[in-house]
């Protein structure tokens, strides 16, 4: 673990200013990925800018049409939030499936999205619900946000402030966890939104994506049965020790079907 300077700013402005001053600095949110990465010597930032004191980045707010969650809101807070559970129960359920209690009590929504781990859970919800990611500079639509493996539309130094989730008519998340790490080998959120059926998939590809063939099948017939036999192109899917691309392809269909059943 290399040496670094630690900052704990009290405002978003101070945080972004510090980030700009130190070229090799990084924002520290919950640290559940960043700190182990630094410990293993895979990252060596000159400065860490802890976002923990930025109360503007925390909190859960519900309006008639949207659920807005601050970037520094912990997974456990989302999972336990009465507002979140009422507005989008699928999202609260998803948050409760992330990692383990320690990760959920420390890890944050913004940290998860900024990191964009291909096997993280939140990206499936962002895609399926058509969320908008608000940063200190602009707003980014879900479809424009996830670009590739650990690659997002965020520019260097850009800070996620909050995420706005339109409240769907109904939605559900089904996750097939990696038995070892409990990350998603495949996680699928199915949502019926005002713009139609949206299906967000995490774990299967280099980053979260909309699964159009399943969306089309569900638009015709919103049933688990309708998903069966839908061909999933797994040619660009991840393949590793735990699951081949072909297996992940099969799991996308199975998990989508289970998510549909879970919407009730």
């Amino acid at each position, binding site marked *: *673990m290399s040496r670094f300077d630690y900052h704990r700013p009290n405002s978003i402005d101070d945080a972004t200013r510090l980030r700009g001053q130190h070229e090799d600095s990084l924002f520290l949110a919950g640290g559940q990925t960043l700190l182990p990465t630094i410990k293993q*010597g895979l990252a060596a930032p000159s400065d860490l800018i802890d976002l923990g004191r930025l109360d503007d980045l925390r909190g859960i707010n519900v309006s008639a049409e949207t659920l807005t969650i601050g970037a520094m809101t912990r997974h456990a807070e989302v999972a336990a939030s009465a507002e979140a559970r009422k507005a989008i129960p699928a999202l609260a359920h998803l948050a409760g499936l992330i990692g383990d209690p320690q990760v959920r009590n420390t890890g944050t929504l913004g940290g998860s999205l900024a990191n964009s781990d291909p096997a993280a859970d939140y990206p499936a919800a962002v895609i399926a619900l058509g969320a908008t990611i608000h940063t200190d500079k602009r707003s980014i639509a879900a479809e424009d946000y996830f670009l590739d493996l650990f690659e997002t539309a965020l520019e260097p130094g850009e800070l996620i402030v909050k995420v706005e989730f339109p409240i769907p008519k109904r939605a559900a998340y089904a996750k*097939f966890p990696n*038995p*070892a*790490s409990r990350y998603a080998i495949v996680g699928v959120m199915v949502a019926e939104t005002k713009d139609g059926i949206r299906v967000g998939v995490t774990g299967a590809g280099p980053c979260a994506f909309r699964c159009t063939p399943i969306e089309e099948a569900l638009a015709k017939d919103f049933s688990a049965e309708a998903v069966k036999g839908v061909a999933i192109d797994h040619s660009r899917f991840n393949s590793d*020790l*735990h699951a081949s691309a072909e*297996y992940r392809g*099969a799991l996308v269909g199975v998990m989508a079907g289970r998510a549909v059943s879970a919407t009730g």
Partner: protein
Amino acid sequence: MSSQGIGASVRRTEDMRFITGRGRYTDDFNLPRQTHAAFARSPYPHARITGVDTSAAKDVPGVSSVLTGADMAADGLGGLPCGWLVKSKDGSDMKQPPHPPLAAERVNYVGEPYAIVIADTPAAARAGAEAIIADFEELDAVAAVDQAIHAATIHPEAPENRCYLWSLGEEEATNEAIEAAAHVTSLKIVNNRLIPNAIEPRAALANFDASNGEITLYTTSQNPHLARLILAAFVQIAPEHKLRIIAPDVGGGFGSKIFVYSEETAVAWAAKRIGRPVKWTATRSESFLADAHGRDHVTHADLALDADGRFTALRVRTTANMGAYLSTFASSVPTYLYGTLLAGQYKTPNIHVEVEAVFTNTAPVDAYRGAGRPEATYVLERLVETAARELNMDPAELRRKNFIQPEDFPYQTPVALEYDVGDYEASLNKALELIDYKGFPERKKEANARGRKRGIGFSCYIEACGLAPSQLAISLGAGVGLYESGEVRVNPTGSVTVYTGSHSHGQGHETTFAQIVASRLGIPFEDVEIVHGDTGRVEFGLGTYGSRSAAVGGSAIVTATDKVIRKGARIAAHLLDADLDEVDFEDGIYKHRSSNASKTFGEVAFAAYVPADYPNDLEPGLSEKAFYDPNNFTYPAGTHICEVEVDPDTGTVEVVTFVAVDDFGTVINPMIVEGQVHGGLAQGIGQALFEHGIYDDFGQLITGSYMDYCMPRADDLPSFKVDTTVTPCSHNPLGVKGCGEAGAIGATPAVINAITDALGIREIEMPATPERVWRACKTAAEGGQ
């Protein structure tokens, strides 16, 4: 049975300190002027070291010394020995290549240490280790056990990477019986490599005392006296009387802490060399790379049956991975702890086993919970279950038909062991009842209606614990005896301090041994203190492994306790003015049989130390020791039955019910025994479903963390149904057999037999991961297999 005597579920004395954070593990000890060590480890599976530049490392702030394998060789240190000399079938000795604690010329596996860096802090030591610039000339490497003999030779002493070719049993008779058989079941069986994961990683803290020339090494050892013997006699770090090994609280071992490793050795050597205490605690990543791994066999096996379904012969051909070097007991695991167990619970008249041990560019492989016996049980119980299916017989009934019967004991197997006692049908019957075997077809139907495939699998295992007797084992190549020492020191006030050569690292000896002594002496449980894990306090010992502590260590304590009782009787006879044969001892009281006069144990103890009124011909004091050398192994056995449900869409396997009925002989503390069974079952199920140490084709470990190496967790497991049957061991004073490994031995085949039953397939590789099971479901659905 008293509330704290033998047979009572006394709560563990040690738990309060463990769960309140008052345990003292090696890393909890700190000494004045202490330094910290880190190791530079090979990034290559096989390479020649062409240069080690330590100058940059020495410049790292806080680093005080950097010592390399060349420095160690220059100091004349010996290599790490293997403690069991196995002979090949042609009579030649196994190949034992040198194993320098720090590599000087070649590295043979990823993670092999070649330098130790000493610094003021652990972070500085690690920074120093990273700053070493070593030049390596890479050589071809091999990791897979079945490729070893075709690959580049690793050690010149072992051409084609062959270590030994060992055999046991009658080859010709076995082959003839197989030729003549009505039915032969054949399987290729892979026993997956496992990586032990004790909660506490290995650690060492060494101090050299220049005033008396003594080295004290605190370390995570299952057998501190063995470590002292090896470090003194072979590595020659210090003479045995100048070396003290303390293995304080140790957080789990499962075999991996039996062995003497490079790091502990290097730390002790470095402490003497620099004249300051040196401490090292492994990171989890280091544990994955450099702890001895377990299992890793490939086997071809044939079971022959006659027309009535009686086993007539068993032939087993195994290739066993030793890793890059022979670890302390590596050679004995796939031979004397494996081949000898292949009779199982059955009267198979002809058995022949041949084992080729090979070197590969992987971490050394040695004993891991069960050590050889899980591998043997897996081979046999997979074969038996498969034979039953091929012959369309009930797997329980096929086993019953072939069981050794109670009247057959003592039973001489064709593979060297003589079983003293057992009742295998009793365990089977109880297990069938517990799982409601008759109700299984209904449960299967019901699961089917839910889209789940339900299966049931059996495993009737035997194990051999308390490896013995010493003379026989030494004649077969063992480098040490297999007895245990026990010492019972009665204090003047009548409380008792017991010194045992067994070592507790989770087993609860401080409780069970105190139960034994307290009930035998008739004194309160609280008046007995158990001391273990310190060569400076305990006379000698061979430690804890192979489920030997109760059977061997406990027997030594009983023997010493009985000596105390006998000496006390002489004192009591004098005090009571009685003849020795008129004195009875019961419930802590010496009684004059005819006069009814009596003396308590405490009064006798006091008299022994304040000998005012005392026999003239008797030494004062009341302290006795014993070395107990068993005359046979003990043979725990039992039946495990597993029911699984498979989700064919995802390949997920759920262990729905698991029944374990074990015969451990006399049970001292049922709660501790049940805990041991639970832990063993978790590890056995872990091997079947989750755990797999994988090296890629280039020799890199790709399951080097919990992100990829899957440990079983509580929510992966059902609530176990466990029970016992009892046939007391016939040859030790307690009638105990041992329970530590049974779960890990019995569970694995039961799970795989259940999965193959659920899917109607013949084989599936371990671990039965979701993808493997999903593929098997797919193949079965498409009409394959």
